[in-house]
């Protein structure tokens, strides 16, 4: 279950990858990083519109592995925060 707006600051702030818990899936909306860095992520499969599933993590939850486009890529929290996602309605149970 996802608790989205309650504890992630202002309600209008979009959800990011950091807000996903293990097993949660979401659709990437956009990457809030400079062009080159965003491109690098896109080449690894982080393209807007793609489904991303949060996986296991290092102890303490950072970095976390994400399943995207057939691969598993670990991102640090500071990077995951920049990936804004939409959570499909069916999962939004707040």
């Amino acid at each position, binding site marked *: 279950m996802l608790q989205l707006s309650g504890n992630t600051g202002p309600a209008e702030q979009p959800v990011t990858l950091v807000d996903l818990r293990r097993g949660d899936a979401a659709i990437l909306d956009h990457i809030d990083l400079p062009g080159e860095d965003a491109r690098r992520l896109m080449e690894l499969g982080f393209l807007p519109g793609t489904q991303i599933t949060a996986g296991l993590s290092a*102890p303490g939850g950072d970095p976390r592995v994400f399943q995207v486009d057939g691969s598993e890529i670990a991102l640090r929290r500071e990077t995951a925060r920049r990936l804004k996602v939409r959570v499909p309605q069916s999962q939004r149970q707040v």
Partner: protein
Amino acid sequence: MSDCNGCSAAAPAVEFPGRKGVAPTTRVAVIGPPNSGKTTLFNRITGLRQKVANFPGVTVEQHTGLAVLPDGREAWIIDLPGVYSLAPRSEDEQIAHDVLTGNRGDTPKPQAVLLVLDSTNLARHLMLAAPILALGIPTLVILNMADDLRKRGGHVDLKELSLQLGAPVALISARQGEGLDRVYEFLAGAMPKPTPKELPVLQDVPKCRQWAGHVGNQAQYRPPVPPKWTRRLDAIFLHPAAGVLIFGLVVIAVFQTIFVYVTPLMDGVKSLFAVSGNWVASALPESLFRSLLIDGVWKGVGSVIVFLPQVLMLFLFIGILEDSGYLARAALIADRTMAKVGLQGKSFIPLLSAYACAVPAIMSTRTIENKRDRIATILIAPFMTCSARFPVYTLIILAFVPNRPVIGAFLGTQTVAMVGLYALGFIVAVITARVLKSSVLKSGRTPFLLEMPSYRWPTLQSLGLRLLDRSVVFLRRAGTVILLVTVILWIAAHVPFVNGKPPAIENSLAGTIGRTIEPAIKPLGFNWKIGIGLITSFAARETIIATLGAIYGMDDPDAQSQDLQKAIHRDLTPGGAVALLIFFAFAMQCVSTVAVVRRETAGWKWPLVQFTYMSALAYLGAFVAFHLMA
């Protein structure tokens, strides 16, 4: 025509004649994303006919090899670094781009490309096909990991894929040697230029991915089910408790092996050199030449070869960790801790290796893609207490620290002193990393990305070739320089002649130098004898023991270690002894390390910076220690 045979004006950086003495006319590049199995394929088709060098001026390693085609002709194969795209941003991508477009003067443009893609993740990997096919070079699209694809129920229509891409396609398993005949067929055949149905705008990543997806769909690509075992193993290896425990066990296993299990091997190599040296010595008449051969060359070479068992064992470990896929998990677990000093998870294993020897540690930083992180790791690695410091620490501690119990019989003062020195190196490394990473080597915002490959069994062939390759690099780079320096030192200790004979060491060139630098090292509590030892120890740290042995007139310093301890005790104050320990903890007294840093950073800048910094720190540290103790 751009793909002619004679038009490459510049000669290749590495001479690579074929077995018949002539350079093969076919030059083929292997390219693909990381972990697609490029190296495995390259090893398959070239076997032991390989060479490794650096691309001139950059840190990217260049692997070239010869493939023998079924008709007996040979092809020159170059393994390019793993890349996801050809956009030249990182050094790796720049090299791949420049070689493939014929923009590197030192490497002629290849006439054909083997594009290796992972068939179990084809849709994404096909993205790289777009820029490669756009080059217009004849290309064989290789879908690797056929075994895995089959086992996990994936499928792809090769005919249709070939039609879409306008290039031949081969489904192979590089690991099992399956489907290689298609590769040879391509290399021996007419090699037509690719005629893809359509290509996307290359700068537009989403468009490229769409195109790749479309091509995959046309070819009925059905991705395999996710790897069951990888999920299961990750549940253990990345478990918050069990994962950390296993990580700890791996670290302990590495330590235990390189310090405990390998020691008899190293002793064996050492005595092999001693015995063979004595044997050669007794076979030759007493002469200067004999002394040069035995005391210079033999001991110099021996001092490097002694580390070979340790280095090989380290590379075996790193090879197993990397090929099995665990290395990425270890990096993930270590990342938070390493991030605290501004580094990242991938720096962990190299730094751990540096406790054995900085040379293989620095060579293994190649797994760190981020250049600044890699340089920072290289710069701090020599602070880790390598095994060459151990005999020096032992000698001085035994000579100066009386063994009194600290906690019962378990922990004595000598052990505490030793552990303290290990800790000292570590702490200075951490501080240095912090300083570097918050100043000159600040990483900017480049995101840290770590792909988690599937777990796989490492293969003996891959491990064997890796060991061979790394030991050649180790022996060649370190061995040649060490040899040169030991010969120079030998000469310095044997000139100028007095009455046609080499002088006593205090009157030799080395002795003169020792006395000349005495004013500079006096503030550290060292006399000229220690000075000579310091100078020779810049070749390799443990050399100081042999040098001091020679100065104090002992033929076999190992056997006379008791006497040597006494002699040193007479010549050094306790303050000077502490200063000497600190000096050894901080100084970069190792020509091999300087040489390998130069190689790995492609220039003299970083080794010079590092050498200066470490020497200055060693001097200051020793100075402060001596005056605090006085």
